[in-house]
């Protein structure tokens, strides 16, 4: 899900729980590397940013749940946050990024309200663009994820965290193809939880909800969905944009 806010955004908040994974291929045959990431872009060209989230890696030794944050300011710098877990802890975890000082272009990063780092200098002190969701950088064998719900907000000029208006976000819908025989890499189920402000009737985005079911084997392999086709409620550029970002971030860097 992308948040493109006309109002200046000065920070970001996201809270989510670690999902419970399931695997079709038992160790040591399967592997997967998932990132539940929220990225805050600090230039309109979306070339500079910082991000944080959960890296969930499955390998022959089990699953590692590692919170992290990444600084894309001048170079790619990856920071582990805390100690990795070997199983979901069941609780919600919260990331926040708040400007380090008034009108400066560095942000303090908080995980569960404790400061875990400060970004390098970014191009500017504010943003109009944010992205949240799952990245799948590799999967051998099938893997499913229980429902995750990224509750995301941005910090406005009054230093108040606000939800995005529905019109300010673009998201992929309907969900990816999970029919038997489909390409598992594209099997995600999405939903955007909306709340309506009493009185004004305005819709606000509460969360971006994702599940990844297991794809049953099928006789006919379905092709990966193409961008911009019927069934996308937002522009085709969304998916293209997301792909560019994924390619740029995951291009051998992790």
């Amino acid at each position, binding site marked *: 899900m992308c948040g493109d806010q006309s109002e200046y955004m000065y920070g970001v908040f996201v809270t989510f729980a670690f999902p419970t994974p399931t695997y079709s291929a038992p160790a040591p045959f399967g592997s997967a590397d998932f990132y539940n990431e929220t990225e805050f872009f600090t230039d309109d060209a979306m070339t500079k940013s910082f991000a944080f989230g959960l890296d969930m890696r499955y390998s022959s030794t089990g699953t590692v749940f590692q919170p992290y944050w990444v600084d894309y300011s001048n170079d790619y710098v990856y920071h582990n946050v805390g100690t990795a877990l070997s199983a979901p802890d069941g609780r*919600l975890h919260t990331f926040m990024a708040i400007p380090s000082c008034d009108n400066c272009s560095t942000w303090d990063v908080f995980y569960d309200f404790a400061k875990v780092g400060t970004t390098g200098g970014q191009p500017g002190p504010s943003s109009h663009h944010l992205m949240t969701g799952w990245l799948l950088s590799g999967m051998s064998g099938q893997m499913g994820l229980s429902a995750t719900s990224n509750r995301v907000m941005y910090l406005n000029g009054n230093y108040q965290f606000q939800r995005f208006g529905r019109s300010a976000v673009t998201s992929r819908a309907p969900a990816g193809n999970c029919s038997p025989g489909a390409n598992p890499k594209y099997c995600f189920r999405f939903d955007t939880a909306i709340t309506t402000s009493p009185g004004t009737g305005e819709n606000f985005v509460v969360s971006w909800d994702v599940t990844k079911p297991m794809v049953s084997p099928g006789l006919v392999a379905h092709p990966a969905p193409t961008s911009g086709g019927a069934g996308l409620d937002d522009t085709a550029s969304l998916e293209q944009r997301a792909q560019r970002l994924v390619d740029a971030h995951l291009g051998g860097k992790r």
Partner: protein
Amino acid sequence: MMRRAVTLLAAVGALLVSVIPATTSAAAVTASRVSARAVTDLRSECAAHQAEAGRVQGWARSRFEQCHHYTEKVSLYKTNGSYLGYFDFELWILAFAYDGSRRVDYVTSVENVHQSTTMSDELTWLTIRFDCRGTDLVCPAGLSRADTIAGWYARSTMDTVTITSPDTAGSGPYKTVALTETVGFTGEYRDGRTTPFYKDTEAINHVRFDSADSALGNGKYKGTVFTDHVPRFALARTGEGADEEARHVDDTLHHPERTFPAVIGKNAPGENAPLHRLMDPTKRRANHDAAVRVCTNVWGTNYAAGGMECDEYPFQSTYEGAAESTGNQPGLWNGSARPIPAADNGRGGTLLANFYGANRVLDNDAFFIALTG
């Protein structure tokens, strides 16, 4: 201990002044019900807070210790209006209240007395007067001491004034009895031709007796406090098992942008403005329920998953809580709610309950919070 005698020149008229060396009170009060050590300790601290101790309300070191220290110069005039002379003295009033007992003790001494050489030691009288007004009080027979300057020099202390209140007396659910103790003095020259000098309100001391019983929380069932003292709840940032609680309080007070609800100009009380304890369990529940609405709104209905609890600051046990201070509109709250580990929340609650008990903080009593470490 004897103090060294000095000679002074009076500023007006360059009267030669006789100087009477004074004794400190500590040794003299050893026979009282208050320990000499307690007296010495409070007196030392009181001297270090002279600016406060010299006010009419004195200086309250704690809920159980308060002191007053004044230097008085009394000018006396004959009934025909002509100036007679003066005497001066130091007045110390050390007050002790008790956790576990409905009793207050006043240890009083008059020291460093001097008077004009034009006045006779035997005719100059100083009377220190305590009152004991109100219901449900047990007052001692000796509420005052009148003596000559020479007499005060010979024995600088009054007998300890002890005022008590019966355990079952008082009003309201906590059986409280309020005492406003006023101390005054009279200066006289008993020659039949001099106008006495009266000062009725030299010191005012506010006392409350209670028998809150188990409602107080983690404390003794009855006790006495000086209500001039607004206690401070010291919460350590680390090391007390309530780190997340302390961080939450810290963020609310100092980094409101990190907290919810998002309120423009959020200015939570506790440091500059006091909190006030709320003891009504129904209202406390309403406060917590309102805070939970914040947690649910921000983190969702699963906010408590994985052993978390919705923590709130200002605490649910205060009138500044999420419902009481907002008319049950927590979106307008000058406070914060967030999920924190249940263990930290529980430990924070225990520390707060201990604080309430140790300081006998009852309903609507003010208190501050201070983060330490």
